[in-house]
């Protein structure tokens, strides 16, 4: 019955997610439609002639009614066909694939580093509540959490790449066909920036939730049962504290997907950030649409995972589903 509950829940959530994505797709399409300027002209640029414009419009189905265009687009999406980039006639998928890999790796690396780090900091701060570590860490996280990531990025470049010392590359170069992990040195600063952007917030939430749990009767009880302190913390406190944090983690990972935009700009990192800015300015609708849908999907999936994870660590919810 429990598992059934879980599956039912997952199903419901997935459907809801799909619903959200459907609405998102409509919005995305509407928004991109609203972009001023004629994509056809944007492509042809200097060499535009009336004939070539007309021809291109037809080629891009820009002459069809909007609903028709939306339908084409959505059905395309479902078949994994993202259309062709208006800027350079190649398929959006081939154009974005390497960029997505790059950004994906960047985000993933940042996530893998920051999340456990944040949890560790949060837990330890809660355990050493009001001790030096707690006060120190909470202050530092507080300050860092407040800083916009482009500020962090610029400062890091100044410190480690140009002015103060020149240990690290100031810009990340991923040669086409190359993979970001070929040049890990170049990843350090962007990753560091994102880590600094994400860790503090998660750490603070983790601390709060951990403190809440540590104050709970059952943790006090666990101590009164004479359990060893680390058993108390790892077995009794941590699992209960993690639950509420998952949502936050998910949201922050999703946030990373947005954070990369600025960070990639600072480090000239070849990723979806640049592609988005470029796509937006070049009126490259298919690219913008694809990226928007991609990011939205990431968000939805992450939240779904977070929900499930929360359920898994909170037995009570399984039954009250």
């Amino acid at each position, binding site marked *: 019955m429990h598992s059934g509950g879980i599956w039912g829940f997952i199903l419901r959530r997935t459907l809801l997610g799909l619903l959200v994505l459907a609405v998102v797709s409509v919005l995305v399409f509407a928004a991109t439609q609203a972009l001023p300027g004629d994509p056809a002209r944007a492509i042809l640029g*200097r060499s535009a002639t009336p004939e070539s414009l007309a021809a291109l419009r037809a080629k891009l189905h820009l002459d069809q009614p909007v609903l028709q265009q939306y339908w084409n687009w959505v059905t395309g999406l479902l078949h994994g066909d993202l259309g062709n980039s208006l800027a350079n006639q190649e398929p959006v998928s081939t154009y974005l694939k390497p960029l997505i890999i790059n950004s994906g790796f960047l985000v993933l690396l940042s996530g893998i580093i920051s999340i456990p780090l944040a949890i560790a900091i949060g837990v330890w701060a809660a355990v050493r509540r009001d001790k030096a570590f707690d006060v120190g860490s909470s202050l530092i996280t507080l300050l860092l959490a407040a800083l916009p990531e482009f500020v962090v990025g610029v400062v890091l470049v100044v410190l480690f790449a140009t002015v103060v010392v020149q240990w690290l590359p100031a810009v990340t170069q991923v040669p086409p066909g190359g993979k970001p992990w070929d040049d890990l040195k170049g990843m350090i600063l962007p990753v560091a920036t994102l880590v600094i952007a994400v860790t503090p917030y998660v750490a603070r939430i983790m601390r709060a939730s951990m403190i809440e749990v540590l104050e709970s009767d059952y943790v006090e009880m666990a101590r009164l049962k004479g359990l060893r302190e680390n058993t108390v913390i790892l077995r009794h406190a941590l699992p209960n504290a993690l639950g509420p944090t998952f949502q936050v983690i998910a949201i922050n990972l999703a946030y990373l997907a947005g954070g990369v935009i600025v960070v990639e700009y600072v480090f000239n990192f070849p990723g979806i950030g640049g592609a988005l800015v470029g796509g937006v300015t070049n009126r490259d609708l298919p690219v913008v649409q694809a990226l928007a849908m991609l990011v939205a999907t990431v968000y939805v999936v992450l939240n779904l995972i977070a929900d499930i994870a929360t359920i898994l660590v909170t037995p009570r919810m399984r039954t009250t589903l």
Partner: protein
Amino acid sequence: GSGSSSSSGTTAAAGTPKRGGNFRLAVTGGGAKDIMDGQSIITKPDQARLMTAFETLLVYDTNYILQPHLAEEVTQNKPDQWTIKLKKGIEFSNGKTLTSDDVVYSLQRILNPKLGLFGTSGFASLKPSGIKKLNSTTVQLNLSYADAGIGEQLGQYYNGIVPEGYAAFPAPQHGTGGYILKNFTPGQQSVHTRNPNYWQSGKPYFDQVTITDFADPDAQVNALQAGQADAMTDLPFSNVPVIKGHAGLSVLVSKTGGWLPLCMAIDLTPFTDNRVREAFRLMVDRPQMVQQVLSGYGTVANDLYSPFDPAYNHSLPQRVQDIEKAKSLLKQAGQDGMTVDLHTTNGAAGMVESANVFATQAQAAGVTINVHNDPNYYGDLYLKLAFSVDFWGTRNYLPQVANGSIPGAPYNETHWPPKSGPGSNFLDLYHQALTQVDEQKRIPIIHEMQALEYNYGGYIIPFFNDLVDAYSSKVAGFEPSKGTLNLTSFGNGYTTIWFT
């Protein structure tokens, strides 16, 4: 006359050239619209790319004097006839020898209006039928009317010689140049490997050339400083002190005829009234422009281009700022206290800055200028704007007119000349000038044309900007040039530079 095949010497200090290495060039201004075409460019990285593989019959040397290159000699035997004689034993990178067929094909391709190539307008006097192959190394051009400008056209970097049957990327790119395209991702990077059977012995020196697009100058400079790039184009003037102070980095300052005009479309309000155009020309404080925009790296201009042209009209009085006159002119035109949008983009160093500085200067005359920095400038808005900023490289007067100041010119931002009134005879004068073979007779005509543009034209040309590039001191062979392209025409196709 004939000249040495090497268009640029090598600085003594640099010592003897060495082989090897991967030359990494950092360029801004590129984007997803990057192309590779032996006879056309859209963005600056395209220029850098074109130079890797394609060469022209003639080239401008560092003093902006034409020298033979692929051609042994190019001569105008009659007002309406030119003859091109090719050097022997030149091969394309795919091993095919360069013959007149290739020259014929190249010229015909340039003339093809459908391709919307750069060079087309410059050859207005040449019809495809006029291109005659005399033998395997000689081609004769029979013009539909006399044209003295053909030689200069053949020296424009974008009129490269391509093999017969050539097509732009993604088709294979084989030129007579020093490098072969290995891979190319628009908006990001292109890699070029050494052409083993390049016709100039010993050259080129690099094993590989890598051209990388950069989003902004800042990242570019960072890359150079962090040793991730060996050279960069268009070092922001403000950065010159930084780089100069930086051990291991050098600055290459070339006094060129390059210019960043403020373009007023003479047929669009409010610039249909020449009093307004005049007023705007008088609002500019040119020395201040040079100071603020170029940090002094430039020379004050007089609303005229092609300073190196023997026919440049030095007699016209230097325009200076005159706010009072400007005000009264605007009052007469009923435009006092007007507001105008000025469109610009990060196309070339200084474009945004000069717009902003002009906006500030205009305040004095009670004119409000709203500066729009539109990244999509060249996509949507270009040539349709009333008031905009653009950039041009060194070029002599007639070829430049062909490019920007006559109907049908590809980049006529000012929509010059007017249909009626003063200046409406500009086109006739242009044709007279072209047909006039005698230099001495041609100059007065050109002076008249320049006077018209000076008084009624749509260009505000505050200065000629120096080209300022930066490169790692590991690279030798660069030297200042008056030419159009950065980094001494990208190390003349990356054949005259090497790693020490």
